[in-house]
């Protein structure tokens, strides 16, 4: 492993291919998310805490939201690692930035999942 690769193991065929697949999924999921959360009013014409909770009680919606969080974090993390790989050449700084990115990714993953599961 050369110095340039230290701290980063992504950047192969899977990373390239799945970045595109997750990108398409995120685009569609974002449209669904925005529509459901902000525009569609299920019964009484407006979106209320009750109507959101009712939706979140459906395990399929919870699974969708968790998949949404996981994919978003993966897509962002993979993209950020590729940018780091291209632009940060100093090994020390690279390790710090990659560590920071991992902490951020884990934070969003845990907080996002806890929110989805905790609300229901």
């Amino acid at each position: 492993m050369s110095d340039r690769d230290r701290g980063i193991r992504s950047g192969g065929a899977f990373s390239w291919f799945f970045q595109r697949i997750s990108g398409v999924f995120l685009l569609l999921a974002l449209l669904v998310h925005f529509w459901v959360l902000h525009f569609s009013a299920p019964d009484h014409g407006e979106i209320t805490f009750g109507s959101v909770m009712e939706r979140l009680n459906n395990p399929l919606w919870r699974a969708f939201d968790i998949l949404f969080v996981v994919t978003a974090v993966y897509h962002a993390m993979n993209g950020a690692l590729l940018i780091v790989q291209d632009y940060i050449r100093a090994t020390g700084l690279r390790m710090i930035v990659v560590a920071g990115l991992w902490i951020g990714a884990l934070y969003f993953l845990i907080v996002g999942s806890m929110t989805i599961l905790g609300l229901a």
Partner: protein
Amino acid sequence: MQVTFKISRFDPQQEEAKQHYKSYTVQTSPGMTVLDALNEIKWHQDGTLSYRKSCRSGICGSCAMKINGINGLACETQIEPMKKKTIVLDPLPSFEVIKDLAVNMDPFFEHLAAVKPYLINEEPPPDRERLQSPEEFKRISDPIACILCMSCTSSCPSFWTDPEYIGPAALYKAYRYEFDTRDKGSEERLEALDNRHGLWRCHTIFNCMDACPKNLKITHGISLLKRKVIAEKY
């Protein structure tokens, strides 16, 4: 028309050798190329100037350099249509400068060799040649026109940041054999292509296509190659 050529100079034999610019004035005439001007300077003004040249016909790829910020062939670039009073000449970016405008081309050819740029086919040859239809040839006729001048690879930001990246020229050469119906060497080439310093380092920036003096669709070829590798793997 009088044109000033601001040329990057570097002499490794000088103590504390440093890159600097030196200006020369050349009287140009219609049809005169940047290479003609360089010859004029070397032959009549300053014999210490170094640059590569050979065929002066856009075939050998020796005289590629950065001309006013864009990579290209000195022998194919005419001066007067540029309508500039000053033309800045630099060596190709990202390669070690040997002297003035001449760079060390070894890394470029090492990357090229890595993709095995030759026909791989273990099957016994037929009585006559291995035939291709005109349509099959058309798919590879573009990359066959590549003259390996290094303009694309040295214009690629991914290559600037990663000297281990094999670069657009090598990838385009790989495309030329991967899409050749007579070639059976996909597996052997995969090792050089399918890694983070290979195909996946290309971020479709298109600098290579801007720089290519032969106007080849390099990024297009690399994208088709990506799809082919993905289709074979997944």
